[in-house]
């Protein structure tokens, strides 16, 4: 499958199939099976007026030019309401954060409401725990981690931002909380999200680092932005060529920042945080670095992964592809049997198997490749 990815994609990967893959990768499918009828329950409840009020105000403000969300009160906006309201009921202590709306909207462009809901749950709890919680400590901490990693990736950019006292929170909040869905051109958003579902938050960090490095990484570029405002302006208007799919994906793949680097930096920044601001007020569950880690932590049964006929209409996200689903089922099944959980976190992208600019495989971790990947991840760790 991997060796002829392009062919495989063009043949079997019709628009709308991404959704299935995202749902399976993030463990949303397993959650959905294990909590049958949960979404319907939540969906039938009225919701806390405190949250409903804010959600309703935001419905028409998400991707207003997308055909799905263009109509006030149209089916796109209705589904968006259902998903966000359901989440505010599912985690009443968290409620609703405005940055969740673009996330849910992107999911809804590719899947029905129930599936989008479980993907959102997985993003909020496994991929980006604490990002949307009261206090927003997790995102601020990741800002510090990003800045520390930048020191190694681009010392020039790091020095410049430090000199002009530009807090990471100023430029990375929207990038990270919306997983670049409001920043990058659409083709790149989809590619980044594919990789994000596979590999976890590492991808988000890498995109951020690539953009910072490209925009502020040389003395020449910095000559034209001598102040805080000028720098911020530059970061708000990133040159299109750096965000273009082919360029960006290659840069992301080549950037040697691993889960281990992020975890290491997380510990040091957490220590600094505690020294300066005291204990974290919001205790979030540990972050899961991608599909493998999630799968290893919560092994699905065959039952959980079985394909149910969901949509039968011949309309956008169709379900024509039962063959592909079977493939996936098989792969997923093998994964849990073969990958030992303790190494699951350390696998990197199989970079040597990818030519720059080629589509990123969505499911790349067959047992055979596992060994290759551990090798490459070891190399990366010594590199940094």
């Amino acid at each position, binding site marked *: 499958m991997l060796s002829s990815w392009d062919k495989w994609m063009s043949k079997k990967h019709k628009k709308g199939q991404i959704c299935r893959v995202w749902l399976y990768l993030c463990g949303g499918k397993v959650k959905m099976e294990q909590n049958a009828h949960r979404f319907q329950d939540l969906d039938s409840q009225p919701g806390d007026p405190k949250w409903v009020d804010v959600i309703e105000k935001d419905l028409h*403000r*998400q991707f*207003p030019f997308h055909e799905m969300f263009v109509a006030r009160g149209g089916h796109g906006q209705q589904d968006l309401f259902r998903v966000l309201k359901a989440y505010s009921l599912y985690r009443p202590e968290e409620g609703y954060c405005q*940055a969740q709306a673009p996330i849910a909207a992107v999911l809804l462009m590719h899947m029905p409401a129930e599936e989008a809901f479980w993907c959102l749950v997985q993003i909020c709890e496994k991929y980006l725990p604490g990002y949307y919680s009261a206090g927003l400590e997790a995102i*601020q901490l990741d800002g510090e981690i990003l800045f520390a990693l930048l020191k190694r990736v681009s010392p020039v950019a790091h020095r410049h931002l430090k000199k002009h006292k530009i807090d990471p*929170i100023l430029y990375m909040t*929207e990038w990270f909380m919306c997983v670049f869905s409001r920043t990058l051109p659409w083709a790149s958003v989809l590619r980044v999200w594919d990789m994000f579902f596979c590999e976890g938050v590492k991808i988000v960090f890498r995109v951020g680092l690539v953009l910072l490095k490209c925009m502020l990484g040389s003395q020449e570029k910095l000559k034209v932005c001598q102040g805080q405002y000028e720098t911020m302006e530059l970061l708000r208007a990133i040159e299109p060529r750096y965000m273009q799919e082919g360029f960006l994906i290659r840069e992301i793949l080549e950037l040697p920042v691993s889960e281990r680097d992020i975890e290491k930096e997380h510990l040091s920044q957490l220590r600094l945080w505690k020294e300066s601001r005291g204990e974290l007020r919001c205790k979030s569950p540990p972050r899961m670095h991608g599909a493998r880690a999630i799968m290893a932590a919560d092994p699905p049964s065959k039952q959980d992964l079985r394909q149910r006929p969901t949509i039968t209409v011949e309309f956008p996200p169709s379900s024509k592809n039962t063959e592909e689903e079977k493939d996936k089922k098989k792969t997923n099944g093998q994964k849990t049997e073969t990958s030992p959980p303790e190494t699951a976190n350390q696998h990197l992208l199989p970079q040597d198997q990818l030519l720059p600019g080629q589509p990123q495989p969505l499911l790349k971790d067959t047992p055979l490749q596992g060994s290759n990947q551990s090798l490459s991840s070891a190399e990366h760790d010594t590199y940094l």
Partner: protein
Amino acid sequence: MEAIWLYQFRLIVIGDSTVGKSCLIRRFTEGRFAQVSDPTVGVDFFSRLVEIEPGKRIKLQIWDTAGQERFRSITRAYYRNSVGGLLLFDITNRRSFQNVHEWLEEARSHVQPHSIVFLLVGHKCDLDAQRQVSQQEAEKLAAAYGMRYVETSARDAINVERAFTELTRDIFELVKRGDITIQEGWEGVKSGFVPNVVHSSEEVTKSDRRCLC
């Protein structure tokens, strides 16, 4: 060539979610009105030059903030370095008016040891038919807090210039009188490129420091 300005003032724009903060700033800085505007996530910022007297230009750096309460932990870090602020409420949304007090408290508790010159703005005044807060009532509240009150509409470009210019003039007067001084490590007011002004403001800072020591 960089436009020459006397001072740079940093302003912060606050108020409940969906009162129209980003739209008001866009109208002022870009001269256009967007029917739909993404909810602001975190903080954003804009700038524009304002001529308060012939030949006297002030550069405004305007910080836009997310209105949802959840983002306050991030936005509150930006009060400290602001010299002025626009506190917005939506005249068609009573609750946003009732929250004005809370916003002021929030700002005051995080601006120490400085203070912010606020202007109260009743926004969306083109929607007079749906008005839930009378002008009189808003003026009374503004007076109680020692603020000016202006009603604006980003859609119809009503009083947008006036709101920003009046606030800028008020701050300028305070700077001229020496009630607000330029301080190192504080971004609220910075002096610009006119040599004389740079000189005199530096003196102010120096004498100020001497007093503190």
